Structures are given as structure tokens and as C-alpha cells.
């Protein structure tokens, strides 16, 4: 956690060349590493502990919660009802952006250019057909579709509206909690290529982390035990907007307690 806080202290703050960075004071991240978390209010959102979550993962997270209680933190259940829609919203928005961000790889300015193109359209088609892999193409096509006229309102716009509801969900929880404790992934690692045939199954593994990106919140993932096969389980701590210091403090306390870490 010290490494994490050190790096964050260095990279945090306004970047004049990034309009999406904020001009707010950088918190004292190192100072946040007190090693204790007495009185902290930690929420366990029930939506993150459904039957879809691997029991080994659930047990590891719940044991982390027990450690927090033992250290004097208050742990209680909370609810994020909009979470069900986070994954859908995330894949619509991120694919839409990706389809546009990746459009510059058209063979004109730089990067891969297909050979033997007879005209401009051919250059665009061949370069992009040959240059991109399956998953990237899947997202470009999905993103292009949801931004198309006639579909924008039903998909992209709706996803953005959902995003607002998810943000409000989290904001409500942070009125009564300092941070949220969840699994990082509903399962431990699967074999390479095992889920490639079913992308939706693969996307579902992102369910615990994408909501954070959607909501614009700080989160960290730390190791917390292993499953029966010895594969690592991760817990995720989510903080309120700009409260990276709060989750660093909670994570460091767990790490010091011997529960976090390998």
C-alpha cells in the first residue's frame, strides 16, 4: 500500500494537457496510512454477494470484513439496486468510445496499412479488417451500432442515463459509509481461452469492477487469500468521489493486520 500511495502522490493532480483532470488539492496519501481503521464505516453491498459469486471468493471477502470488525470498524450491509445495469451500461459506453477512438487506425496516418488497396475505401476496409483482432472488432461493431442514428437514443443515451442513476446509487451509500468492500471478481482466474467462445460470460467477470468506472469512483483491489486450487482471491475497496485517501487507509490497515497481501 505504501508503494501505491507513493505513486498516487506523484501522479495525482491537474494535468494541463488533460481536460478531464480536476484542479483540486491532492490529499495526503502517505499520511492516510495510519495502520488503523477504528470507527470506519464499511458497507457490504448485498448485490455483490449473489449466488453468481464463487463461494471461495465470498468467504475470502467476508473474512476480510470480519478482520475489519475486529479492528474496530463498523461493517454493515448496504444496497446498490442499479448495479444490475452497470455491466450493460459500461459495455455500451466503453464500446461506443472505443469505436470512435480506434477509428484513427485507418491506414492513412500511421500504424498498419494493408497492401494492394485499389482505392481509398478499399484501404480503410482492408486495413481495419486485417489489422484488428476479434475482440476489438466486436467492440467496434457494437459501439458503432449503439451510436448509429435510430439506435442512439435506445442504447447509448439510455446507457448514459443509467450511468447517472448508478452514480446516484453510490452517492446515497456514501452518505452513511466511508467505503464499500466487495469481491474484485466473482470468480478466480479461468484458463486461457476457456471463455472466449462466450464473450458475455467473459464480460460478466468484470461486473464487480466496471461499476466503479461508470460511477467515477476511486477503488483498489488487493489480494486476500486463495481458493481451494490455490488461486488468489482479490477484495475491492471503493471510496467516495476523490476519497482515494480513505480506501488507502482501509487497505493499509488490512495489510498491516496480516489479512491482506499474499
Amino acid at each position, binding site marked *: 500500500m505504501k508503494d501505491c500511495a507513493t505513486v498516487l502522490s506523484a501522479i495525482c493532480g491537474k494535468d494541463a494537457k488533460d481536460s*478531464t483532470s480536476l484542479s483540486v488539492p491532492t490529499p495526503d496519501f502517505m499520511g492516510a496510512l495510519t495502520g488503523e481503521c477504528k470507527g470506519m464505516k464499511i458497507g457490504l453491498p448485498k448485490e455483490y454477494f449473489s449466488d453468481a459469486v464463487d463461494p471461495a471468493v465470498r468467504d475470502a471477502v467476508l473474512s476480510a470484513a470480519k478482520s475489519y470488525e475486529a479492528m474496530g470498524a463498523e461493517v454493515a450491509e448496504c444496497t446498490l439496486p442499479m448495479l444490475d445495469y452497470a455491466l450493460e451500461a459500461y459495455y455500451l459506453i466503453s464500446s461506443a468510445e472505443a469505436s*470512435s477512438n480506434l477509428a*484513427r487506425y485507418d491506414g*492513412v496516418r500511421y500504424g498498419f496499412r494493408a497492401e494492394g488497396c485499389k482505392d481509398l475505401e478499399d484501404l480503410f476496409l482492408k486495413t481495419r479488417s486485417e489489422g484488428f483482432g476479434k475482440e476489438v472488432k466486436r467492440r467496434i461493431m457494437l459501439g458503432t451500432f449503439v*451510436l448509429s442514428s435510430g439506435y442512439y437514443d435506445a442504447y447509448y443515451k439510455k446507457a448514459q442515463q443509467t450511468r447517472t442513476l448508478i452514480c446516484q446509487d453510490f452517492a446515497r451509500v456514501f452518505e452513511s459509509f466511508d467505503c464499500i468492500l466487495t469481491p474484485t471478481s466473482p470468480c478466480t482466474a479461468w484458463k486461457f481461452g476457456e471463455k472466449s467462445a462466450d464473450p458475455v460470460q467473459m464480460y460478466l467477470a468484470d461486473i464487480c469492477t466496471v461499476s466503479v468506472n461508470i460511477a467515477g469512483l476511486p477503488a483498489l483491489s488487493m489480494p486476500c487469500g486463495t481458493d481451494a486450487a490455490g488461486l488468489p482471491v482479490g477484495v475491492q475497496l471503493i471510496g467516495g468521489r476523490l476519497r482515494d485517501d480513505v480506501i488507502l487507509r482501509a487497505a493499509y490497515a488490512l495489510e498491516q493486520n496480516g489479512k491482506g497481501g499474499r
Partner: protein
Amino acid sequence: MKYETVIGLEVHAELSTKTKIYCSCENSFGGDTNTRCCPVCIGLPGALPVLNRTVVDYGIKAGLAMHCSIASYCKQDRKNYFYPDLPKAYQISQFDLPLCSAGYVEIDTEEGMKNIGITRIHIEEDAGKLLHAEGANFSLVDYNRGGVPLIEIVSEPDMRSPEEAMAFLEAIKSTLQAIGVSDCKMQEGSLRCDINVSVRPEGQEEFGVRSECKNVNSFHAAVRAIKYERDRQIAVLEAGGTVEQETRRWDDAKGESFLMRSKEEAHDYRYFPEPDLAPIYVDDAWIEDLRTSLPELPSEKKKRYVETYSLPKYDAGLIGASLGLSKLFEDTVAAGAAPKTASNWLLGEISKILNESMLEAEAIPFDGKALAELIAMIESGAISGTIAKQVLPEMFAGNKSPKQIVEEKGLAQISDEGAIMDMIQEVLAQNEAAVADFRAGKDKAIGFLTGQVMRASKGKANPGVIQKMLREALTALK
């Protein structure tokens, strides 16, 4: 059947900011190819746009000058399409929430003043430029223009003739120049327009189907393209056909437009909010600051010239529309010249020289004091109007005052009666027929003889004195 033409225009004006819209590259015309670019304006992965605040200032100024309301909240959007001059394969523009909306500009028409509605003005970035080499099977791209800030001004379909469209374009140009946000040089492509034309039977309420015409690069081309499109659509209707909604490309050399794409082939630009940029919030204080910084607008100048100087509306409009002419006019009048006389010189001889040498009024090398001096010399009889027209080009050529030029070239008017009498005697001796005509009662002959004496004096003799002395001499001969 009689038809009415309905015209709407989309004008793109390059803003004359020091730097580009999303990076600090120099914003100026020309330069070696691909020397005014950086990772941002050539769209390298990871480079992010940062909005140039002056672009928003200029956009708001244009909006205020065109009586628009300024959005307190607006955003920028991506317009996605593939073309080699667009390095990111999207243009950052504004879609559903433009910076300015619902304004108007005033134009002069045969039926009097008319307001042409401005639907919206938004800010966006320009694309690069494709260079096609003769006979080559490839094209090159110059990205210097990529990321140059633009405003797009969209009019309501309020114009009813090519002349009104021309007046609208002139009004836009003079307004943008007056407020200093664009130099509007058509030859450098800093002002371009797309034209929307439809026709409808006279008296019909609903609009006809419109076509959009692109690649119109001069006001003159705009007028020709509108006339061409109007005539084409009327011919289609007269032949029993229907006008299709389509995009056409104007070819100025051929004087024709060609189908670019039909409605079915229209691009789907997949607009969505630019995630790399924050929304733009404009508060009242910002707007008021800019409002108070606005100079007098061409339409206001025109009004003032009519009211204060009693200039004819026509003169006032032309002078008021040009920064260079209006400054020279006001300085000349301040230096003592009569307003109408100053206006005659500006719109007559001076404009003629500007047109012939393809110069803008801002390039006139002399000031109002010099022009007033020239006018005063005519009025005092020191030189004739004819001579003054010879002095003027010299004033363009160097930095000499009219007095210096007259002295150096020996152009001062001859009012010495002795010298003039010698010339009169000579002319009378050589033009016996005209003298006989005069004696026979043809008073007109005196005009011809005066002209001959003027010629003998190389234009330097005082015409009033000549006439008076001629008449005396001829009467004495009777």
C-alpha cells in the same frame, strides 16, 4: 408557373486566434506542409485536446454581433467519418447544444431592410488539406490546417434570391471582420459556405425539397451556384419530375453542380459527446465582458453615417461594411473634408484602384489627412479634379503627400490669365469650324473648345477660368 427560391446558408469562418483550437500550434495560413502540427492535431494516440478559451470568446462575440442568445451550458461532440484529411477520423464539433442560437443579421434588399435569421453558431475544428498532384495515382495530406478553429454559422431558410444570399454573406463577412474574429479571406479559404436551395410555386406555404451544395469558395460562386440550382430544380418540376433531397458538389470552372450523394447515401456521423473535453459553462459576467468589448458594428456604422453625415444609405452601407474604408472615411472627414466628397473618392477612384490591383481597403497606404489634403486642393482651385485623379495613384505608390506630388510633377493648376490666353488664341486659330459654330449660335461649341484648351494645358488649366476667358475672347471676335 412562377416559382419562389428559398435559400439557407451554412458559413464556415476560420477564426484568427494565435493558436489552434485544441493545441498550441500556430494558427496562420500557409507555411511548409506539415510544419504546424503536433501530436494533438495529427491525432496521435494518447494526445488529448485542450480547448482554447479565445475560441469560445470569438464564438460568443460572433453570436453577440448577430443578436444570438449565448448558451450558459454547452458541450462539444464528435462527428465520426473516415477521410484522410481527418487524422482522428472524427471532427470535434458541436451537435445538439451549440454555443449560440436564435439570432439574426440585417440585410438591405430592394424592398428595404430584412432580418435573416441565424439558427445557430457553433465552434469546431478544421480538417487538413488534400493535395492532388497532376497525373499522380496518390494524394498527399497537409495537416497544417487541421485543428484550426472554425465557427459554423447556420442561417434560417430566409433568403429568397441570390442577391439576398450575397447581401447576407457580405453582412457576415463585414461583421466578423469588424469584431476582429476572422479575416474572412476567401482566397485563403478562411470563409467557405454550403448552400441549401429549394423552390416552391409562388404562394405555396410549405417548402420544396432542398438540395445542399458544397465546395462553394467565393461569394460570386455562391450566387452562380444558387442560380444554377434554382434553374435545375425548376426544370425538374416543369418536366413533371420531383426534386430529390441530395448533396451536390459545385464545380465553379464548369459552372455546374454534380450529385455527390443521395439521401440514402447520406453519412451517419454517429455524433456523441466528446469524452475528452469538459462541458463549457458561460456565465453572465463573461458575456457582458465580451459585449462591452465589441466595436461598432457595420450596421450601426451605416446608421450613424446616414444620421451624422447625411450620406446616402448606399454609400453608408458600403463604407460601413469595410474596416479600412470606414476608418479612412472618418479620418478624412475629421481632417476637414465634406463627407459626401470623401465618400465619392472612396467609392469611386479609390475603390477602382483597389479592385484593379486586387487590394483590400486595409492596404491603402495613405491616411485620412492625405485624402483630405487632396480634396482641399481641388476645392481651393490648386488642382483640377482631373489632375487629382493623376495624383491618387502616386499616393498609392509611395509615402508622399498630395502637395509633394503636385509640386514634384508640376501638376499645379494654371490660373494665370496670360498663360491661359496664349493657349486660347492657339486653340481658336486651329479650330475655325468650332468658332464658326459658336458664331452661328451653337453655344455647345464652347464646351468642345474648353476641352481643347484643357488638353493643351495637359489638364492643368483652371476650367472655370478657361470658360470665362473663352467666352470673352469669342464675343470679342464677333
